[in-house]
């Protein structure tokens, strides 16, 4: 059975990100010299600000719509496209912005997208990766008009689930793959809420079986910046 201990879990749901006050605490988690970070980049910076990264770390980055706000602005710049917005609208811009800002090389980066089964896909990637430390980072930016057509998120939210080495124990919970075909397929926002509440949840795997998140301790390991 594939399993990994959960070492930490941080979640974030933001109110209207068009309000500069919302983003100010997030900006403080990056060096002052770093500018032009996307909203998703700021959320990733905040979610990962307290982590101690192993040299043998892998990042699984899961988002359906990626840098939706930057993408909207890039589209609106047609036909005089902005090179900066082109770069930041490309998957996986948020992770690259933060890791570049922190001057930290990253050997393994697995950016995924998905629909119904995006959470299962992220969890499978994490369990199959042979890195000692795995971060599953996910979330969405709040779009301004794409979400009206169901191709963007109306909410800004994110999570970072830190996992330890395969088949070890300890931590605040466990992620494992089990043979029984059961569970649900929550969208990323619902998964974030489950994580925030530290709820034991079975996630259906379309490949067969399910992923089980079990929490050893109910106390939350996340806090709001607001």
């Amino acid at each position, binding site marked *: 059975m594939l399993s990994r201990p959960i070492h930490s879990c941080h979640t974030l749901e933001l109110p209207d990100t068009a309000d500069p006050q919302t983003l100010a605490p997030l900006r403080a988690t990056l060096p002052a010299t770093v500018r032009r970070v996307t909203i998703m980049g700021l959320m990733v910076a905040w979610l990962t600000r307290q982590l101690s990264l192993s040299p043998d770390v892998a990042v699984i980055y899961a988002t359906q719509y990626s840098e939706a706000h930057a993408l909207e602005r890039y589209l609106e710049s047609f*036909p005089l496209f902005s090179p900066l917005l082109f770069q930041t609208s490309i998957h996986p811009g948020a992770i*690259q912005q933060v890791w570049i800002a922190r001057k930290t090389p990253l050997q393994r980066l*697995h950016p995924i997208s998905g629909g119904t089964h995006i959470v299962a896909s992220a969890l499978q990637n994490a369990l199959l990766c042979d890195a000692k430390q795995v971060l599953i980072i996910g979330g969405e930016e709040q779009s301004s008009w794409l979400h009206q057509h169901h191709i963007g998120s109306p909410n800004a939210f994110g999570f970072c689930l830190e996992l330890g080495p395969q088949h070890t124990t300890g931590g605040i919970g466990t992620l494992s793959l089990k043979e029984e075909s059961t569970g649900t397929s929550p969208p990323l926002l619902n998964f974030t809420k489950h994580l925030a509440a530290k709820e034991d949840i079975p996630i259906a795997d379309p490949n067969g079986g399910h992923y089980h998140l079990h929490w050893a301790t109910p106390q939350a390991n996340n806090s709001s910046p607001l």
Partner: protein
Amino acid sequence: MSKGRLHASFPVSILDAKCVTVLGGQSRSLDCLLNGKSGLEYAPVLGPAGGDTVPLGLMSPMTNAFPPRWLPHLQAFGESIPDGPWGTPRYPVIFTSSNFAIDQLLAFSLDKREERVPWCSPHGCAKQLADGFGWGSNFHIYSHACVSAHLGIMHATKMLESNLADRVLLFSFDFLSPFVAGGFHSLKILNSERPAPWQNRPIGAIGLGDAAAFAVLGREHSPFKIICQHLGNEMYHFTSNEPQGSGFANTLAPVREALGDYRFWIKGHGTGTLESGRLEAQSFLLNFPHTPLTGWKGGIGHTLGSCGLVELVLAMEAVQRGQAPGIVGASPPFFSENCQPKAFPVNAYNGVLMASNAFGGAHALLFMTHA
């Protein structure tokens, strides 16, 4: 960046694989590349909206059409995928692309035609394609710019190694649109010059191309096997590499140790940009001093997220022919002496090292052996 260990060393078999480029299927494409022919032609960078003319390898002119102008090309290519229970348990499909149907999103932002919406996200595009091909919902989607296909191959390898799959279908595609052509043009690397990979010249330039490829990966015997894979992300800058070449060196080091006595040639990334081209060529020369280096983006264009798989299929075709194309579109002086401007025999080799790079200083390497 730590050198680390190989990220995948489980040998997977390539049971079937095909590609299509602006030059045609893999056989026709290789014919053209062996003769030094390029499929890149000058076309307006913004398609129907005009703009500067740049070298593009288009299977059909860029338009704002709905259904997408590339869908008939992809549907026709899909006919060559072997039947199987794709998308059901133990037979996953892995979609990899940089663009998916981003042309539809740009067009939707301009004309608000609702029928485009189901295509406008990566998962929406993948679902439309899976439904059209009659595949199930057991699929994964990777998008990491120009190393996307490598990530898909690595995940397929992990699924096979862990016995979570019997076979994996990897399906990779990228078709050009004003969105991506305009983006690279805004970065000034898609310009009026034709790409000349690894050529030491004053102005760097890339060309872009439409392409698609598939591979069926499994554990059964096959003449072609992928025996090691490795990744790295410099995270030095969005669009440039660490200037001393540490990203290339650190990604190559564990691969060099793993290759031992294999006799191989190298298909490099080689887009035609200058600084990354110099670092890549010199790094290969330093690590593998007598190993031929070639690349074909001067002939088929940079096919973006699909390039890792498209060029792997072309390498397989070259092995079967016993002749690999040289660097199409470039001539001496090169950044390193192992660059091969002309086609060369490959019968004496038993492997090919394949490399791709992407934004953020991303590196992806795989090594394919053949009987």
